[in-house]
């Protein structure tokens, strides 16, 4: 089975928060341009359940944004740039503990009722009442949500929680109180006929296909320009690739192994853009007695030729990562290039050997180093067997580590077996990536924040390598208390330094958004020159709403 990557939809931002002009244009609805047309999206690996609950992780990407809109849109690819959406503005209190949204007037649900501040208050209190719906655990930080005046919603936090802005404003689809208040059990509510504020509604759904049709009364005048979206459920990649390359579908988000021959050569209108968003890294179990020694971890970081892994394992479509953990070029402005250069982590197997020898390790007759107490540096790395590119990448890694006297066994496992081991910490090394966010901070918090981890044998939601350092935790907490860009940058530099000095994990390649699109029928796609939203067709929400609003007939 070829692999599809579900990268990152959960991205976005704080950072440059401060003030957003209420008059900022909501989306670049170019004047003129052709209307109509049916957009077909090609990619999926399962049959549809035809439920559209925005709080069901299996179907929320079908509805959040395009049907159930969010308060704001936070763009990962433009340094967490905020665009007002259902809320026209927001403001943090001076102590960053109270967040106030002003709700847009004149927005209607598709059943004709107006959107009110009460709907937003209801939505968030629904997540409080039913923790199974709270996919981003926003109520871990919130203490209350209440209406103020006619059109304002006030969110009060237990502690300063600036990064939560992204989860609250960009990831929670707002639902109508007049419908959801009557739902007996929202956890098991399928929501087959969703009523939202978004530019599209569900026309019909079968397990094989979802048909969206445009909402004629959408609150942004003149939008959307395309009139229908078809989202078929492919069970396997080859037919999805075939439909995409022959123009039967115009937008895809799948990995196509031989992109040039299989896709680009079929039409001059076929294009791709693979922007990187998070790191694929080797997570190092911090409780392993041999891997506890930072010398071993540093030696491994020197012994891996990231460029070669990217070239062979990922066909060059995924760039090599850096040890500072900042995804470039997406988040290049956050990178402390001087520190990275000083730390020197370029491919250097001799240096790796020198580090180990200096730390008292001795090479045995089989060429593998052993610790002073005689334990061989032989490790097992767990990997997803379905990701054929990762299997190839780890073959390269194990050859390279062998040259530096470290033995690596690659264990390619089925998805659930792999995940169970990963979350429970039953591994020496693990090849994996986190979901990230609109600034590098989110990925660092997921990697390093101690309290979010769990003891070995208990499932940890994040921080799978069980890294624990009080100073790092304090840095991560301090970041959450500030909206100052310079202070955030200063903290991020220190966190990058943790990665460089302590090597709790080794970033190897950068996970990208797979995005193939055809300009034969529709134009207005996100490109490197205009990265107005994440392009991963049909999965990254609410970004794909932003994209379909920009698209128009050629």
């Amino acid at each position: 089975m070829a692999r599809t990557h579900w990268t990152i939809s959960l991205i976005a931002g704080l950072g440059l928060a401060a003030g957003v002009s209420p008059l900022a244009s909501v989306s670049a609805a170019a004047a003129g341009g052709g209307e109509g047309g049916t957009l077909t999206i090609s990619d999926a690996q399962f049959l549809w359940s035809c439920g559209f609950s925005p709080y069901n992780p299996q179907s929320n990407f079908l509805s959040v944004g395009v049907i159930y809109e969010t308060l704001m849109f936070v763009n990962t690819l433009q340094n967490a740039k905020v665009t007002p959406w259902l809320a026209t503005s927001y403001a943090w209190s001076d102590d960053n503990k109270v967040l106030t949204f002003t709700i847009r007037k004149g927005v209607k649900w598709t059943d004709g009722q107006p959107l009110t501040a009460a709907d937003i208050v209801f939505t968030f209190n629904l997540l409080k009442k039913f923790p199974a719906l709270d996919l981003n655990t926003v109520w871990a930080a919130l203490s209350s949500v209440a209406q103020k005046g006619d059109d304002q919603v006030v969110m009060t936090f237990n502690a300063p929680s600036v990064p939560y802005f992204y989860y609250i404003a960009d990831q929670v689809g707002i639902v109508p109180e007049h419908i959801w208040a009557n739902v007996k059990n929202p956890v098991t509510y399928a929501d087959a006929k969703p009523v939202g504020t978004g530019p599209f509604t569900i026309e019909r759904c079968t397990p094989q296909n979802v048909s969206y049709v445009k909402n004629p009364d959408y609150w942004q005048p003149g939008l959307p320009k395309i009139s229908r979206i078809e989202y078929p459920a492919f069970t396997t990649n080859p037919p999805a690739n075939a439909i995409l390359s022959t123009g039967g579908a115009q937008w895809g988000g799948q990995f196509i192994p031989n992109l040039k021959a299989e896709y680009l050569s079929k039409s001059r209108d076929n294009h791709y853009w693979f922007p990187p968003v998070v790191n694929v890294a080797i997570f190092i179990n911090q409780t392993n007695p041999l891997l506890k020694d930072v010398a071993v971890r540093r030696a491994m970081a020197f012994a891996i030729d990231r460029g070669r892994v990217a070239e062979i394992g990922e066909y060059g479509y995924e760039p090599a990562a850096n040890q500072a953990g900042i995804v470039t070029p997406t988040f290049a402005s956050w990178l402390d290039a001087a520190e990275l250069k000083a730390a020197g982590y370029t491919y250097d197997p001799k240096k790796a050997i020198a580090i180990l020898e200096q730390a008292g390790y001795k090479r045995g007759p089989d060429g593998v180093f052993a610790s002073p107490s005689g334990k061989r540096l032989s490790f097992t790395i767990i990997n997803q067997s379905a990701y054929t590119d990762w299997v190839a990448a780890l073959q390269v890694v194990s050859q390279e580590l062998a040259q530096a006297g470290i033995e690596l066994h690659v264990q390619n496992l089925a998805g659930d077996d792999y995940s169970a081991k990963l979350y429970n910490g039953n591994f020496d090394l693990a090849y994996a990536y986190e979901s990230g966010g609109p600034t590098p901070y989110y990925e660092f918090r997921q990697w390093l924040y101690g309290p979010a981890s769990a003891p070995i044998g208990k499932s940890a939601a994040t921080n799978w390598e069980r890294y624990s350092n009080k100073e790092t935790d304090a840095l991560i907490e301090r970041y959450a208390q500030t909206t100052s860009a310079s202070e955030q940058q200063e903290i991020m530099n220190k966190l990058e330094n943790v990665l460089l000095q302590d090597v709790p994990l080794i970033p190897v390649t950068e996970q990208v958004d797979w995005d193939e699109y055809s300009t034969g029928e529709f134009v207005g796609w996100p490109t490197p020159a205009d990265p107005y939203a994440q392009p991963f067709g049909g999965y990254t929400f609410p970004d794909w709403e932003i994209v379909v609003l920009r698209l128009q007939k050629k």
Partner: protein
Amino acid sequence: MRYVLRRLGFFVATLWTAMTVNFFLPRLMPGNPAIAMMARFHGKLNGQALRAMEVAFGVNAQESLLAQYFAYLRNSAVGHFGTSLTFFPQPVSGVVLGALPWTLGLVGVTTVIAFFLGTLIGMVGAWERGGWFDSILPPVFIVLSAFPYFWIALVSILIFSISLGWLPLGFAYTNGARISLSWPFIGDVLVHAILPGVTIVITSIGGWILTMRNNMIMTLAEDYVRMARAKGLSPLRIMIDYAGRNAILPNLSGFGMSLGFVVSGAILVEYVFSYPGVGYMMLQAVLNEDYPLMQTLFLIITLAVLLAILAVDAITVLLDPRTAAAS
């Protein structure tokens, strides 16, 4: 009567064993449904969603395995199959009923066609053995059935859908079509069924031909066939009523078994052609550790196979009374 009772006893014992295995085997898999869901959406879901899903799926509910087992037996008996986790929050019964007609239609019809066609070819081939018919058709189909199914399917997609563009490359009907009992929709479904249907038939027909042809050659050497010829009966009547009727018996039990297995779908067929049937659903259920859906599908398969065997036993007794007498 004793014969029937003994068959029924066997039926109940087998059913219970199969249901017990259905229950315990999936639970030996590592992980739990929430972790399987995180694996499916790896990187797409915030790690915190794990906690939300554990609550929604009731993963940490403290109930002993034995208590769950008896609840499962009780619920199965009264037809309560619970909520699917892969297609959460749809009820299992709805999910299965939505997929079953597609599988029954495609795999059921093609199994019947393959059986009748294969039996006919085997019978005629044996009757005229050595002739041109016998030298061409049986060998061709037997060679075809030796190919891996997915290879034949992918090659035919490549030729008839991608290169020639004659037939759709997958799905059960045109995307966006409204499901209805109208002629245009039925025609659409039939067009979509040609490629998967024909590939199933040409890859499965070889087995029927081979057994039928061999049995037929044996029966043609029997004394009663020679007797029939001597009586001057028409060749058609000898072929069908005398030789064919006896030669078909072993094929018939095989046919019953495969009818039972129709409800398990054809995983490869549905996978390659993105056909929204039960086989693909079963694959998803296993991958996602969807215990309720898995149990229901396995229960249906077990029941169908056992009922088919029961029915074949009955038909065999009618066609060949010796079976009952001897037992």
